[in-house]
């Protein structure tokens, strides 16, 4: 299988997620540059966390319009699995692969801490190694993680089982609608989430709850 991590100027979790992919896959992913218009055919594409283009416009909006994203969207439409983490989730909503928007945290401050998540949908390409309803601990680190969508969209997400992760009761760090921490497209192949599974993928870093995201996708792909 071929995995690619997209590197935007200002990405800062690109190495962290590459470490996890390599650990799961036994092979380092391709690090793809934002300015390239070609992306080798990839089974897995990861949009990492960070501050793409400094987040100086709306978070993720400039990255969504970078040359490489045309290729990412094209490959996603042909069936590639895509994971957007934090800033990567913002990019996925900005480029239209996922619905909704990530607004500023309700508390108006950046927040970095562990959160308890409920795996709401364990049938996505990334969550098959979790039990449905399982509670896991994964950290967040963001200033704009407050997921918002109109009522129709939220209902659609619920009806189509497109809510992948929610913050456990009382642990919503940003005011997100329906406690949404991560969503997927109806096929389950495109997942966007604010928490950082790559930061909790080994015991030395406090836990391994995030690791199954990466081993799960590697197992699911050819």
């Amino acid at each position, binding site marked *: 299988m071929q995995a690619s991590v997209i590197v935007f*100027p*200002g990405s*800062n*979790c690109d*190495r*962290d997620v590459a*470490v996890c992919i390599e650990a799961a896959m036994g092979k380092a992913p391709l690090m793809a540059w934002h*300015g390239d218009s070609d992306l080798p055919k990839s089974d897995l594409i990861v949009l990492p*966390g*960070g*501050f793409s*283009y*400094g*987040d*100086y416009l709306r978070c993720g909006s400039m990255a969504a319009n970078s040359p490489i994203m045309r290729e990412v969207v094209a490959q996603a439409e042909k069936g590639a699995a895509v994971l957007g983490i934090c800033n990567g989730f913002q990019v996925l909503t900005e480029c239209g692969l996922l619905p909704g928007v990530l607004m500023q945290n309700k508390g108006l*401050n*950046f*927040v*970095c*801490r562990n959160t308890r998540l409920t795996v709401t949908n364990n049938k996505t390409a990334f969550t098959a190694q979790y039990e449905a309803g399982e509670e896991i601990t994964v*950290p967040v*680190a963001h*200033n704009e993680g407050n997921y918002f969508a109109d009522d129709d969209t939220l209902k659609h997400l619920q009806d189509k089982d497109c809510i992948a992760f929610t913050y456990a009761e009382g642990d919503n760090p940003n005011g997100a609608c329906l406690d949404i921490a991560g969503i997927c497209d109806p096929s389950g192949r495109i997942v966007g989430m604010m928490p*950082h599974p*790559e*930061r909790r993928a080994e015991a*030395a*870093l406090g836990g391994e709850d995030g690791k199954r995201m990466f081993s799960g996708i590697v197992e699911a792909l050819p």
Partner: protein
Amino acid sequence: MSHINDTQITDAVVAEHGLTPDEFQMVCDHMGRTPNYTELGVFSVMWSEHCSYKSSRKWLKKLPVDGPQVIQGPGENAGVIDIGDGDAAVFKMESHNHPSFIEPYQGAATGVGGIMRDVFTMGARPVANLNALRFGQPDHPKTRHLVAGVVSGIGGYGNCIGVPTVGGEINFDKSYNGNILVNAMCVGVARTDKIFYAAATGIGAPVVYVGSKTGRDGIHGATMASAEFDDASEEKRPTVQVGDPFTEKLLLEACQELMASDAIIGIQDMGAAGLTSSSVEMADKGGVGILLDLDKVPCRETHMTGYEMLLSESQERMLMVLKPGREPEAEAIFTRWGLDFAVIGKLTDTGRMVVAHEGQTVADMPLGPLADGAPEYDRPHQPTPKAAEFDAGLLDGAPDMASALTTLMASSEIASRRWVYEQYDSMVMGDTLAGPGGDAALVRVHGTQKALAISTDVTPRYCFADPVEGGKQAVAEAYRNICATGATPLAITNCLNFGNPERPEIMGQFVGCLEGMGEAGRTLDFPVVSGNVSLYNETNGTGILPTPAIGGVGLLKQLDKAVGNRFTENDLQIYLLGDGNGHLGASLYQRDILANDDVFAPPPVNLESEAKHGALVRQAVDKGLLSAAHDISDGGLAVALAEMCIGHNIGAHISVEGDIGFWFGEDQARYVLAVSADKAADLEALADGLPLSKIGVTTGTELKFGDTVTISVAQLHELNEGWFPALMQG
């Protein structure tokens, strides 16, 4: 239009530049003529206290700076130590006090940006940031605004660039009401054979400017940082620089990419005094001359004068000297990252700095006097009088143990800093083994099984009462915090914040603190490898408490052996390592429980005990004996125990008896150790005569002292967590 250099150099112009008449005469002697306006500007920043260390140099020379672990001591952009296997740790701490008071967000942000550039200029990748912050009284009208702005600025910069902020410290004291302290520390990791230095050599080699464009921000920032504040200081906002962490992230990646080649001869960031100090330092260290063509400098504003370009402190800029002919490959890298790249000059054999602008030579100065010619002052210093011993009579009618402990847990010094550190990304880079809230932060050296232990420490109220003991204690506490994780302390950086050195009593504090610091560094084999001095932290004649902040770095060779500072399970045996006589002078108990601000002697520091007890803790960790270890500092034994209970909501029953001094005294060289019952005998055997006594056992969810005092851990936790959010909500 008249040229800026047509300006008459009058006494008033000289005074505006912060030079004394004697200093100006020295400048004229070095020049062999009266300097023009641009040259005067350059001399004034290079000879400012901030850049020249003219009041402090004499005393800094007495600090221990050597050791087998030291690769580069003070004098470069950052210190470098050997951490084995061809790896080096590169680190430094620096102040951004004056700008942070005037404009807290940008002041703090650019402080973080500046210290990271100092580290990655040396070829290191920054892996950890820490911050030592001091604010005024919690209820002072400006405090909340300053805390919010500084914290937001530190997070805004560090989070974006993607370097974890893993620790630090915060104190509140009325002496900082008009002068907050923002000391930023950065630690990076490099290969020992890929360290880059500032020295520029090779006549004719190109001088290259990379990074952001130059604007008018920060002109004379270094001069501002070398003067006292008065009521009009907030009008100095235009001298504060504006940070752009996104550009710094690009600059970091581009520099790392170029550093992987061998194209760079020397590299220096443009920090205080910008293009001036970077070019002067590079050329002077290389023993060459430098010719600059300001027409080539990328500017973001029009009609900038040479004076403005030379003195601008615009951020995110670097100056490099490349091997001749390597410009194209370097330019390709910087262009790919969207950064400016311009050859703005070359090295010469003149020993002079010659600056051309718009077809004229606007400055022509000898480099030696600019770099090293500032006068070294031996300012009069009056030793701080010995403080009296604590007056035990003050304890009459003291509150009971439970109420004293609960009060301290919710006090400004002890309260949890969660409100602050959750605004910092402490986990990015995936190597943070122990982030904020521990004794020392632990950061793995990427791809290895070893970790750096990092801590910042100083207790300003001790330094005020007795500078020598306070200086020792700051070093000793950093040493202890590192030992408590199991790591071996290797070296320190310092950030010396004091008031006006022209006052003999302030200079006496400075001299005293450095004496103590030097003695501790020598005895503990904990040399100083980098540092920074910030003087004139005064407003309307009132100075801050002497605050010589220490940043310590240690090495844990096997990260899986690390221990934390929280109780991990029930039925652990609790030991007190170290002894004392219940020293309450200058303690938090005196300040916050007795509400007494008389000056009493702080706890004396026995450096031999520090070394022995630290070694015991490290050995015990190495042998896998300990479940937890915590250094005893502010608030004494009772607070240390309460903190150990809070983490995992595990209580303790303390079976020994003691008086107020025993519970709250701040005697030094002490730790609380927790050990499982089957290992207790091994720990006792290892102690081999050192003062180690069993004081209790972990159990339940209450902290009990004997049979009379019982406090629920949940209550301690709530009190400890509640203070900071309540402060910030107002």
